[in-house]
């Protein structure tokens, strides 16, 4: 799901587990109302029954304020992250890590908002007639797209490199219990039927898990979800890594004794758990999330039968579309519940790339990028092998665009993009399957890769236009599937014939 959201890693409780982060653009309201709403939400948030060790101070809930200025021709809307503004006002204190890893919120930050309130005019969002002119600043849109291209590309590279070199992941060694029907049937019709049945079972498992998660969240069983996610990340970080390492060592015929292996896997897994569930450098956290998505994608590629995999990819993008956009869809209900409670939804499966911008500069200041990235992003979770509901929350989140010319240069705003790990996984499954079964053809893999990137680009563009929760899978997977089948069947013979005659078009 894609939506706008400020990088709220500071506000989230480090033990909060959400599998989905999205927030609808709040309806346009007067600045006074906005302030009111924020204060109310803040009070409510302070009395949430969070797990111990969290929320040293009442973090401000997600707040939006709109600054509108009229121009001659086009309308302008600058979205603000009020939390960012408050944080800026108290930089000295605000970046000090609290016990749960979040910067402390000063309670006297209201006056900052007071100042802001003077600049705000009531207005609306695009698509909602406001009578005032609005402008959507796409100043940082391109940067966000690239911030997502890079991790998606890295994940795909890891998956494709493994598929092409390690034979284990292309061997057929049985199937998951979620896909019980075999594809080893004599007739094409039977095979098709079996793959459709496999897909139905898999999708119903995912739907069931999703609904279970929503129910748990609705009834505030945070401990259960917390435990579930820790179990799944343990399995991914230790068991799957061990298997992966074993297969890679086998492929390259490198001997490793058990003590070294134990030490390696233990260190890798322990650091991973700490980075993902607690505190750690952002880059390390991102790397772990990419590794985990790649491992998960490799498992899918290995254990899903051929045709079932393609049908599942298609079905899950349809499910994603339905779940995010339909009023009674589970993901949408999750979003709305989280919004009612004014708390961020569980960030399990969320990849975040927080960046620090100096407001007033058109470009990102490279020197500030490394130094001031938020080191703590403890709500990052990984996908869980058991809870297949979670892969259905692919989302991308965009924080509100800052664009407040006239700010002092010392003030900095935090902007990050968040993408659900389910997206990473299914993109990589598509590209990995193309690499595994494209008859050794690199063109198919590359075509799928480009198609997925273009889909992601288009999805982000739609996000900038619609500014509400959007699913990230459908467009990319559709393009990917179209390009896979057409490249494999049409382009490949053409290019092969051309290459063998050394003809260049």
């Amino acid at each position, binding site marked *: 799901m894609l939506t706008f959201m400020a990088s709220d890693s500071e506000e989230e409780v480090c033990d909060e587990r959400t599998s989905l982060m999205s927030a609808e653009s709040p309806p346009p309201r007067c600045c006074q109302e906005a302030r009111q709403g924020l204060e109310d939400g803040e009070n409510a948030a302070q009395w949430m029954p969070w797990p111990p060790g969290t929320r040293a101070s009442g973090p401000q809930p997600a707040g939006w304020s709109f600054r509108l200025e009229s121009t001659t*021709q086009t309308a302008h809307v600058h979205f603000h992250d009020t939390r960012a503004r408050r944080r800026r006002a108290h930089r000295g204190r605000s970046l000090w890590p609290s016990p749960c890893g979040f910067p402390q919120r000063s309670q006297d930050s209201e006056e900052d908002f007071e100042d802001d309130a003077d600049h705000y005019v009531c207005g609306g969002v695009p698509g909602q007639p406001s009578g005032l002119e609005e402008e959507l600043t796409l100043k940082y849109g391109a940067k966000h797209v690239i911030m997502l291209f890079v991790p998606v590309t890295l994940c795909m590279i890891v998956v494709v490199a493994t598929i092409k070199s390690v034979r284990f992941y292309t061997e057929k060694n049985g199937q998951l219990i979620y896909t019980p029907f075999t594809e080893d049937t004599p007739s094409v019709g039977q095979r098709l039927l079996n793959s459709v049945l496999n897909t139905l079972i898999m999708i119903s498992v995912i739907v069931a898990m999703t609904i279970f998660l929503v129910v748990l969240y609705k009834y505030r069983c945070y401990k259960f979800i917390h435990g579930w996610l820790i179990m799944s990340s343990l399995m991914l970080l230790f068991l799957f890594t061990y298997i992966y390492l074993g297969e890679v060592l086998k492929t390259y015929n490198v001997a490793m004794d058990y003590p070294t292996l134990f030490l390696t896997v233990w260190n890798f897994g322990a650091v991973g758990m700490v980075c993902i569930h607690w505190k750690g450098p952002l880059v390390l956290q991102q790397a772990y999330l990419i590794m985990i998505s790649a491992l998960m994608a490799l498992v899918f590629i290995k254990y899903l039968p051929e045709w079932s995999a393609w049908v599942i990819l298609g079905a899950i993008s349809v499910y994603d579309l339905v779940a995010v956009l339909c009023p009674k869809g589970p993901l949408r209900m999750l979003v709305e519940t989280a919004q009612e409670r004014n708390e961020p939804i569980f960030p399990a499966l969320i990849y975040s790339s927080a960046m620090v911008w100096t407001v007033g500069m058109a470009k990102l200041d490279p020197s500030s990028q490394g130094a001031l990235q938020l080191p703590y992003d403890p709500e990052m979770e990984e996908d869980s092998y058991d809870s297949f509901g979670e892969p259905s929350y692919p989302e991308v989140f965009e924080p509100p665009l800052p664009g407040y010319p006239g700010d002092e240069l010392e003030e900095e705003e935090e902007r990050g993009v968040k993408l659900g790990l389910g997206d990473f996984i299914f993109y990589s499954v598509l590209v990995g399957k193309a690499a595994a079964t494209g008859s050794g*053809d690199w063109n198919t893999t590359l075509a799928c890769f480009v198609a997925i990137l273009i889909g992601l680009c288009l999805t982000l563009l739609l996000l900038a236009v619609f500014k509400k929760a959007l699913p990230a899978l459908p467009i990319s997977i559709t393009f990917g599937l179209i390009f896979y089948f*057409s490249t494999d069947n049409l382009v490949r013979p053409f*290019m092969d014939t*051309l*290459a063998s005659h050394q003809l*260049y*078009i």
Partner: protein
Amino acid sequence: MTAAVFFGCAFIAFGPALALYIFTIATEPLRVIFLIIGAFFWLVSLLFSSLFWFVARTITANKDGPIQKYLLILGVLVSVLIQELFRFVYYKLLKKASEGLKSINPDETTPSMRLLAYVSGLGFGIMSGVFAFVNTLSDSLGPGTVGIHGDSPQFFLNSAFMTLVIILLHVFWGIIFFDGCEKKKWSALLIVLLTHLLVSALGKSQI
């Protein structure tokens, strides 16, 4: 064949394009996006040309002989036409996009049309070069002897240089094409089309 052949041919074919990418495109996110969209447009054009060739081949019922050769040549010519058509479509899209960007961000410098011409040409070129050469390249890592059936032993080297040439030519064609479109000089478009046909037809001697 050896790793030396692999790396040598890879860098011959893609070295300049990689250098151009690293030094001019990778720094600006907007340019990267336009590059990838350009690559996508080339891919779509290739899709249509393959479709045409496939249909033509199915119609002639896959008979072997000279008909396949003529079909291939026809396929190449149609492919060139479709590529140039998609370059024009991309030009139109970029024109609209840069107008949109200008209206949204009047204070920020949007990329000029010439820069976009370069980026789009590079996108087309990289995709074209990669699609033409990467399978050959991956074969060069495996076992085998080049030219064992009497073909030229310089197959890899020839292909690598030809790929390099095609990539650079796409960049130049992109710039000339967009310039011609901007100044409404249709002769420039014709020159691009003719030179593209010429370069592709040069390979005809290989058949």
